[in-house]
């Protein structure tokens, strides 16, 4: 069964649990020009409430980069 999988990635902050939904059009994604995109820029992942996020020892507010396909994200049809 052939599938085209319409997915985005949900990337979660390790400090506060906030997340950024990363899919086509997000600055972290690169358009391959063939109808698909790829995640390539970790520095482009942000969350909206960084001011509420406890910084780590280095003063950063890092994401834990839990790449997750969230339901419903994939559809396959021949």
């Amino acid at each position, binding site marked *: *069964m052939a599938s085209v999988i319409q997915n985005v990635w949900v990337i979660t902050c390790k400090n506060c649990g906030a997340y950024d939904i990363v899919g086509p059009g997000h600055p972290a994604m690169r358009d391959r020009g063939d109808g698909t995109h790829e995640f390539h820029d970790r520095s482009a992942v942000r969350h909206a409430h960084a001011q509420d996020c406890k910084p780590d020892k280095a003063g950063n507010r890092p994401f834990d980069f839990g790449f997750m396909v969230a339901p419903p994200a994939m*559809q*396959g049809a021949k």
Partner: protein
Amino acid sequence: MGMTDQTLVDKLLTMFTLNTTAFTITPGTGGGSAFTFTPPLHLRLFATTGSEATTGTEQTGTNGYTTGGSTMGTTAFAAWSAGASSNANQVQWTASGTWASATNGIEIWDTSGTPVRLFWGALTSAIAANAVVNLDTVTFAAGSITTNASAW
């Protein structure tokens, strides 16, 4: 043109994706080759996506990813209805180093000695090579993989 009875499609896909016991299909006289189908199903990640006829190039089995993928649980899918279902359990990998391979697609296989490929597909949002690093997780949540055989 519609072709296959939908109730039969649901039954067949139930047999392959919810069954918890290995079974062998033995063709009658003049039939093809017998094959054994063994649960649990495994979700595999692919650097090069396969096609309808052939498998792709699986992601390198290092740094938290094991060649052959990870189990989708005792019963991999939810009940089938109208030729469609989705994965019943979460599948997750934790990287122990940088993944040098891109993650461009997935495939779902059984775990027979000679594994049988069931489903394949390309991710519209892939992950580039070297974008997953140590301690990152890559997760497919329950319900995130929907298969639709309504046009089978």
